[in-house]
């Protein structure tokens, strides 16, 4: 899980404004896409419930070999509801998290950037693995989650490294070195989250395959696979 666990006051005003403007632009693009696709009550309700589950899961500690870890399931949310709705969901989850002290109000922007990248990468990587590489739900979910969380861990290093912690005398290189330690831990827990997400996706594929309908291998390809296997 990659989340910038910094509270308000950690970044300078300049970088706070920059990251929040970038996040606002990404959110604006997502809202425009939603408007074009049509935000039906069903889609809004699904987004809200996913946000509620995501927020609830965020508070649960899963015992792992590297200690208790928090899942945030942003790649899974991207897989289930797509990048535009997923972007709205991560913003809502970050707002509620800020309200309880899990990250600062000013850090909503940087954290949203990180989580939006996870949602988008999770969705497209899963589609690539599932539809084009024809992998199973388990390996598609695992690969997409690990890829998304690994890249987002480095995005966290980039954001904190560029912004630097205000009040600290460390140089940028030293700050990045510190953050690389955190990134290594994030990648380790990301692999664990990848395993859990893979099992969740497999579970959903068994009990509610309609929720993963948009990642189904196209019928034509399905038929080709069947023919190639020699089944009439």
């Amino acid at each position, binding site marked *: 899980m990659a989340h910038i666990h910094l509270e*308000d006051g950690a970044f300078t005003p300049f970088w*706070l404004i920059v990251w929040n403007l970038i996040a606002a632009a990404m959110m604006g693009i997502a809202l425009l896409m939603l408007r074009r696709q049509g935000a039906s009550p069903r889609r809004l309700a699904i987004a*809200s*419930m996913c946000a509620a589950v995501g927020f609830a899961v965020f508070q649960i500690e899963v015992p792992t070999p590297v200690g208790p870890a928090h899942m945030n399931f942003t790649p899974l949310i991207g897989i289930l509801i797509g990048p535009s709705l997923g972007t709205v969901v991560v913003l809502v989850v970050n707002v509620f998290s800020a309200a309880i*002290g899990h990250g600062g109000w000013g850090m909503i922007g940087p954290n949203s950037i990180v989580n939006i990248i996870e949602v988008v990468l999770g969705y497209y990587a899963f589609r690539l693995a599932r539809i084009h590489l024809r992998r199973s739900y388990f390996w598609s979910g695992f690969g997409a989650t690990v890829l998304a969380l690994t890249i987002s861990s480095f995005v966290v290093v980039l954001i904190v490294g560029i912004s630097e912690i205000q*009040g600290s005398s460390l140089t940028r290189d030293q700050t990045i070195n510190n953050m690389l330690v955190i990134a290594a831990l994030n990648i380790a827990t990301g692999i664990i989250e990848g395993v859990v997400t893979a099992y969740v996706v497999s579970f959903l594929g068994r009990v509610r395959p309609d929720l993963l309908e948009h990642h189904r291998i196209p019928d034509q390809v399905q038929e080709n696979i069947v023919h190639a296997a020699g089944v009439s």
Partner: protein
Amino acid sequence: MVHRMNPWTKLALLFFVVALVTVLLNVYAVLLLLAMTILFYLAARLPLKVLIGWWSLPVLFVLSLSILYVFTEPGTAFASLRLGGLKIAVTDNGFVLLANLMVKALAVVTYSLTVFMTTRYNHIVHIAYRSMPSTLATVFLLTYRFMFETADEFSDILDAMHSRSGSLAKGVGRRSRTYAGIFGLGFVHAFERAETISKAMEARGFTGSLPVTSGLPRPTFKGYALIGVAVVALAIAVYSRYFDTNLLRW
């Protein structure tokens, strides 16, 4: 008094609290801000035990990311250790930085909790619709409405798992499957609930935004005065940081 305060005033002051902790560098100034937010919390007659409990979360998060700075920040070393040619030292500047970040976090969290614990839901609805795009506001409010129910559901499932000795399962694979089943079930219930809610919403003539049933008046004169004081405080903080660093001498 705090419960009767206009929500717009409280929200505006939240913005200024966040802005002040971002601009202020002096730990004594931030300590003063923390003291004022605690007084604000106490003025709302909210239980102190709850606040101390909620403080554990930002303390944990500040420590998790900033603990490295205690060892790597240049300064006078309190204690040091040599590990195979590498020197690890705990420095005074590292502690000051950690303390600064901690106090800033606690000031914002204290004020945020006071605002949310003293503002009615229908006022939050009004503010959400006035300050966010309607799609975002709808998702935000529906999430707020169902967040507690979902958290309770997960809590019940975890209790059921523990009561059936599920926590004794060893191994990454077995534990992953156990928790994956719980989380997967949570998502399945979420989708089913969403489908039920959307049908209910459409049956009641939902047009894309939740109805705002009560208005919210503008801040009173006292509210504007408080905001004015916050603006002046922020202006002084910005001036002392960027133009005259000797303005606030502690």
